[in-house]
């Protein structure tokens, strides 16, 4: 057993991680899928010639591949394909921005909590418990009531909802790291607290944080779809997959295509991120696989 471990240890860790990641085909598919989705969001106007918001009352509920509309039209005659393509923009925006927002706010708090422990830690833990006790939907609904429903408030709600989880991860890592010899040595040699936190602790907790981010993005995307489905997220006429599904449910008897396509779009996006995140986790932390 030890023999086996020692052979593996001889490879450089970065190369081993890359190999572990590339060894999982689904993870690579996920990464490619994410790149395609990003490209679709950026080059939306080049991909489709129809405006996602232009109505055409002569072509309502057009079937796919009819009248020049690849995926048909909706109840207002808007091109479904265009709406799906443009929908990637708000989807990615909410998913990525909310996650980064939550991470950037939470990581420093988590590190401070784990490094100083004591009453600072207790106070921070109680406050995260408070946030945790409000499901993201309640936060989103509350913000929608106070500030009005909008994309920005959906991002804010999903970002806030992620804070407790990230704080806990960063705190757990910091608690472990502060006992490590290199951190103890830095403390003993009189390094200032900000230096210790930023130079010694943060770089050594990047792996779990990267994994957390890659898992949180698809969660936030699902959350944003849920919010726009309920009408408290992205507001019409901006195309969003969730709100497309909400209207589609009304017309389930007339045109079921409208209900199938946005769901497939959401599913494919979150699948790509989840496959990617799983591969990343296996590569960075083999013990969990």
């Amino acid at each position, binding site marked *: 057993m030890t023999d086996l471990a020692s052979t593996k240890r001889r490879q450089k860790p970065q190369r081993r991680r890359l190999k572990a990641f590339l060894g999982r085909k689904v993870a690579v598919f996920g990464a490619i899928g994410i790149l395609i989705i990003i490209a679709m969001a950026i080059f939306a106007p080049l991909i489709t010639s129809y405006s996602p918001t232009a109505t055409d009352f002569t072509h309502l509920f057009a079937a796919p591949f009819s009248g020049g509309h690849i995926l048909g039209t909706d109840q207002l005659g808007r091109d479904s394909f265009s709406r799906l393509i443009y929908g990637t923009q708000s989807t990615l925006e909410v998913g990525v921005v909310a996650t980064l927002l939550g991470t950037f706010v939470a990581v420093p708090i988590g590190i401070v909590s784990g490094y100083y422990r004591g009453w600072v830690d207790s106070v921070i833990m109680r406050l995260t418990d408070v946030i*945790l006790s409000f499901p993201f*939907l*309640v936060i989103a609904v509350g913000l929608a009531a*106070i500030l009005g429903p909008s994309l920005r408030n959906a991002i804010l709600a999903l970002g806030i909802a992620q804070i407790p989880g990230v704080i806990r991860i960063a705190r757990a890592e910091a608690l472990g790291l502060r006992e490590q010899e290199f951190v103890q040595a830095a403390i003993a040699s009189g390094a200032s607290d900000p230096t210790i936190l930023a130079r010694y602790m943060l770089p050594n907790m990047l792996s779990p944080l990267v994994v957390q981010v890659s898992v949180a993005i698809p969660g936030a995307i699902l959350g944003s779809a849920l919010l726009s489905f309920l009408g408290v997220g992205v507001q019409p006429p901006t195309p969003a997959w969730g709100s497309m599904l909400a209207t589609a449910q009304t017309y*389930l008897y007339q045109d079921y295509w409208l*209900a199938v396509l946005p769901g497939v779009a959401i*599913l494919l996006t979150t699948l790509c991120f989840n496959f990617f995140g799983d591969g990343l986790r296996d590569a960075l932390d083999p013990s969990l696989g």
Partner: protein
Amino acid sequence: MRRYLYRRAGASFITLVLASMVVFAGVRALPGNMAVALSGENGSAAAIAAITREYGLNKPLVVQYFDWVRQILTGNLGISPQTGQSVVQEVAQRLPVTLELTLLSILFGVVVGIPVGIFAALKRGKPIDYASNSLAIFGLSIPSFWFGILLILFLSVRSHILPSSGFVSFFSNPLGNLKDMIMPVVVLGSGVAAILMRQMRSGMLETLRSDYVRTARAKGLPERAVIGKHALRNSLTAVVTIIGLQFGVLLSGVAVTEQVFLLPGIGQLTIDSVFQRDYPTLQALALLIAASYIVINFLVDIAYSLLNPRVRLTGASK
């Protein structure tokens, strides 16, 4: 054990108080005049004046907060301007629906997710492991409301096997009630199952590698006892905590599932109260949801400490 319980109870109480302050502050942060907001869109000047008096809106905020808490403790959560009913009555009518949906979904998740997770761990690297893992990722990736719409589309709209939406009480029509619940429970429960399955699988893999499982085998125990007694007991502790943490996520899922299947539960009421600016109801629901989350996690802590002698005996926290 007792000391640990007291400490957890204390922490939960503090969290609950802080959460109630957040709800109170949130309602005060609503746009416009508080009294106007509370009396509904078309409140008359007299009504507004009455509300200002009733809620003590001209008193200092601290006093208002304590008045509010006192009212809650006496079971008075105000009157919904929308229906004219008391909020307590409104919530009490809808609570059973949500409770039934939540409990059945968790049951579904546990019954499906835990055995599959154990099985996948035992068959690690085999096709069955990959299959169940892929299915779990699928379960995590699929938007619940879309899954619900698809079920309605195939099982109701196209083949009329199950009712598409609506709700009858279990007590007036048990069979009809369960039929109404099948699709919502599958939708909500499959997400829970996916999370529990993955957690169970990784927890099981970890315990299967542990030295004490090797000791159990060295004793000559049959594999059934090695897995069922020695490995399972230690993997379950982690899963119990996950169930508690998932509860918040589940509550958001409940709302949207109720919306899709038109179940008259707490989630639907929450969404409705936003759009109808029914702030007393919204305020009560936010507090209720936060309180139930805190209480559930306290119960989970107790369950965790019962399963884990290290916590039970020394009061060490996880």
